[in-house]
């Protein structure tokens, strides 16, 4: 899976690439407007991460170009502007998702995961990892052919974990994933523990024990 990171902040681009590479994506960079145009004209990507403020031009015009050339690349806008107008405009032009800076790498990986799945399969949209099989359209999970009954939040958590295989995910990132911007306002994320505990229990019951590991002091890890 190929990802293009259009981002002028080199350190940030490098970290994103490091993280995404470690969960199995192939990453390329474009740090300026013209470089980005060059890349998208020459190659196809599964997903493009697009910063809106670039040296040499606006990310929105890149988005317009992509849409005009009828490219199927998934596009996630990553912006520090936090402007509702840009978000609405970006999604109207045809971006698949919008993520505000600063964000968690795990959240980004989960969004990329979701965008790519949405783009690639239309009818039978299945995702398999180990013996866990997810029907993304019907939103049901089967393990070794037995159905796993999950709440909406547990299902979201499961997808989030699977999109961040073998990474340490902080409680904070999980809380933000489950409740969005609201998580920003709280410091107590104990409810995450409750949801993870339930998910673990349900996975144990179908024989998938020890996949979610607690990492002392920081969070959890999906160990597959």
């Amino acid at each position, binding site marked *: 899976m190929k990802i293009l990171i259009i981002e002028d902040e080199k350190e940030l681009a490098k970290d994103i690439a490091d993280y995404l590479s470690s969960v199995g994506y192939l990453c390329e960079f474009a740090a300026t407007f013209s470089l980005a145009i060059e890349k998208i004209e020459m190659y196809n990507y599964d997903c493009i991460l697009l910063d809106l403020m670039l040296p040499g031009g606006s990310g929105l015009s890149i988005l317009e170009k992509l849409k005009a050339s009828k490219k199927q690349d998934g596009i996630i806008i990553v912006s520090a502007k936090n402007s509702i107008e840009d978000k609405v405009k970006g999604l109207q032009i045809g971006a698949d998702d919008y993520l505000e800076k600063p964000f968690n790498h795990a959240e980004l990986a989960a969004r990329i995961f979701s965008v790519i799945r949405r783009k690639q399969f239309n009818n039978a949209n299945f995702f398999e990892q180990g013996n866990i099989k997810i029907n993304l359209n019907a939103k049901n999970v089967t393990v070794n052919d037995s159905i796993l009954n999950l709440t909406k939040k547990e299902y979201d958590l499961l997808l989030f974990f699977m999109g961040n295989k073998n990474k340490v995910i902080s409680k904070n990132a999980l809380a933000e994933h489950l409740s969005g911007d609201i998580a920003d306002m*709280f410091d107590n994320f104990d409810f995450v523990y409750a949801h993870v505990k339930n998910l673990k229990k349900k996975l144990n019951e179908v024989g998938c024990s020890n996949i979610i590991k607690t990492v002392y002091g920081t969070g959890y890890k999906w160990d597959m």
Partner: protein
Amino acid sequence: MKKKLLNRPLKAFTIYALIVLVCSIPMYYFVIDAIWIEELDQHNLIIKQRIEKHFEDEKVNENELAFIFNFWDVLQPGTKLIPIANAKRNSDSVYTVTKGDENDRFRGLLSTIFVNGKSFQLTVETNVEEVDETLLAIALVTFLFFSLMVTGFIILNRKMAKKIWKPFRNTLDKVKKFDLQKNQNIHFEKSDIEEFDELNVELNKLIENNIIAFNRQKTFIENASHELQTPLAVLKSKVEMLMQNEQLSEKQAEIINAIQIPLARVSRINKNLLLLAKIENNQFIETETIELSVLLHENLELLSDYIDAKKLTVKVKLNQQIALVSNQTLMEILLNNLLINAIIHSTENSEILINISGNKITISNSGIAALNHKTIFNRFVVSSTNNTNSGLGLAIAKEICNRYQWNLTYSFVNNYHEFSVKFE
């Protein structure tokens, strides 16, 4: 009660006029009395001279004199003629006397006249007005004029006040209506009165400077938080990269965790500052009709994890359906901030009461002591010792309410903190 400016000189003028007029009463009296007595003295003297002249001209003999004497009272009422011996010439003297049942006052002239070589003492007495009568008359006239004057003052004052203060009232009304946050300029009407014109010019300068300073501050906050976003994103990214390190010891993991908490707070504050600046800059223009109870339940659903974590009970009393034309994002932020505030400041196992009625939504949570009404909606006023919140949540809620002219109020009733938004 506050006094009106123009009533102050009116009162002073009235008192001054009263003092002057009261003082004038004895002065008038003395002057009138003195003139009167002077006139009466002359009058008495004229009578005396006339009597003397008559006697001289007529050359009366002894018999006639005796006859005249008998009829003296009839001939010359108010005078007396008594024969005396060996009187000296020119021994006129004047006096004042009161006599009779009604204590009438008389001015008298005591003089000596000579008729046929004999000396007589002539007394001429003329009635003078009494002291009290004169005084009363003067006082009555004076008070009549005084009341005329005061009525005049009041009427003139009222008429003048309306006219004179009109430009001032105009200016005051405009200053009252002026709202720095509404991004509007102010124009005062020209006045032909120098002082008011000067006031308007200076007020204009003051307001213009305020607008400039306010805009500068807004731009500064917006730019500053924009500039902070990227380094914050890098910082967060680096901490996360560190977290992925396999060789991390427990101690190091703890430190990373400890870095993440304040880092989250900084980005929270920064996001909120940016949001405040945007609300102030009149972004979020699009409006739609929003059903308050629907939005409330959506928000409560989003917050359910946090409500459950504190074992809170939320009781919603819906007595009215309120449909509001406003911006969806702002409305969500407003409700969220008030709900989050209630959740954060609730003790575990307590209740949050939400009441929608009378065009008003009230969100209450249990509490121990009232918060400071004056500062509660100010920026960075943190009421509790837990420093998790950004100190901007209520300021943002207030700003949103200001935007739509809704009234956000706080009160402390029966150990409950109550935040109400009255939709006008």
